[in-house]
């Protein structure tokens, strides 16, 4: 048998990757903003957090995870009664791709809500379930942020669960060290 017949096999999967390349985005920025801040008159003022190298180092030191972005997309949220908090969009590493999620943080540094905007992993679609995301509600930097203590693990998506949990903690640190200082 000639092995020449087999050569195409080696590269076949990579040749067809384009066929399966797709992305699933569940929420737009505007949709996520109005779910986390349902106030009728809420306005979202784009105010990205531009971070210095020193600030990124400080965030890593306090949260335990890397602050990957130099510019963190953030919106200051207000309504007719005043300042409601911050809306931040972030990405964390998933098993195959980045997981995009949004977090609302109150002026006092409490998590108001977490919404999964894009999740493209094989297992762990449960991260989008409201029951799981509710565990983040009211979390502050005083909480331990441990998987299976603060927030339950999702089987088959432990890395995704942990990275979202760590990501929310990192955004609370960013809020405390950068956004609250404004």
């Amino acid at each position: 048998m000639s092995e020449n017949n087999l050569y195409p096999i080696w590269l076949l999967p990579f040749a067809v990757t384009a066929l399966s390349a797709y992305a699933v985005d569940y929420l737009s920025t505007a949709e996520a903003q109005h779910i986390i801040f349902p106030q009728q008159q809420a306005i979202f003022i784009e105010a990205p957090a531009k971070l210095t190298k020193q600030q990124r180092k400080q965030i890593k030191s306090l949260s335990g995870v890397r602050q990957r972005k130099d510019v963190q997309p953030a919106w200051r949220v207000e309504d007719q009664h005043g300042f409601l908090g911050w809306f931040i969009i972030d990405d964390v590493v998933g098993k195959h791709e980045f997981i995009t999620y949004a977090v609302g943080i109150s002026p006092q540094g409490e998590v108001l809500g977490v919404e999964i905007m894009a999740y493209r992993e094989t297992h762990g679609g449960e991260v989008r379930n409201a029951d799981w995301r509710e565990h983040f509600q009211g979390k502050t930097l005083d909480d331990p942020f441990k998987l299976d203590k603060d927030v339950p693990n999702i089987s088959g998506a432990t890395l995704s669960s942990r990275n979202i949990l760590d990501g929310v903690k990192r955004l609370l640190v960013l809020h405390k060290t950068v956004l609250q200082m404004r």
Partner: protein
Amino acid sequence: MAISFRALPLSLAVLLVSPTTLAGENLFGHVKGAETLPKGSGELYQKLTQRSDKGRGHYTAYDAVTEFEYGITNSLSSTAGIKMQSIDTNGLLIEGYLPEEIDTGLELSGLEASLKYNFLSPAKDDIGLSGLIGFDYTWKDKHSGQDKQTASVETALLLQKFMLEGQLTWVGNLGMEATYAKRDEIDGLPEDFEWPTDPEMEIELIFGTGLNYRFAPKWSLSMEVLYETEFETEVGQERWSVFAGPSLHYGSQTWWATLTWLPQLEGGGEQYEDQSDTDLHLIEKTETEVRLKIGFNF
């Protein structure tokens, strides 16, 4: 039971574009990670390995393994597989190992099953740890293609560590395989050609390590090193070898593929007569292995 390889590319292509196929992740060609499948989920693997070049004559072997893995619980998964192989060799005879020039075509060669239990999760604990026990029965010799019955039990400890939030993954494997083997007689061999048919016992130790880095969404590169050594009833340490090389991995939500190139860097133990490259073990191993693994999740 020879089957043509020519149909394989078409079969793979059909599988790959099928909307019913789903995917997981297996980053390395040889070394294994510590993660298990979640309860109730399944994964279908197709592995194809080319082993080529023994330093003289022509030697090309293909091993094709089709495996199905199932998550019994979140910590325990089981695997069952069918093995096929083809051996094409000429211009090289080795006493006790390669008795004839042969071109077998692809034929069924064995069955395998294993259980993997996860003690520590790499994503939750400081380091991931799993134990693996595998059973393997073959009726074709992996080296010569001749009739040979082997029954093996493999045990392994699998370590895994995520770094950089999972963008960098390290794995380490420690394994031991015990094998009972018995060759069938071959008619027509020269009387002075050594082809022992008494049962023999072999113990193989396997140490492997690998590092994987995801350089872009869905795409990662790995480097792995594999040290294998075998001890046999009569000769003590029969062979050892070090293979090392890179893998390119693509993993999506629905399927994954890993292509590995693993040349033998160093080897020792038994050698065949007049072997030119004496820094390699070329009786049971070859100079190069290339492996393609494809997985689909269910």
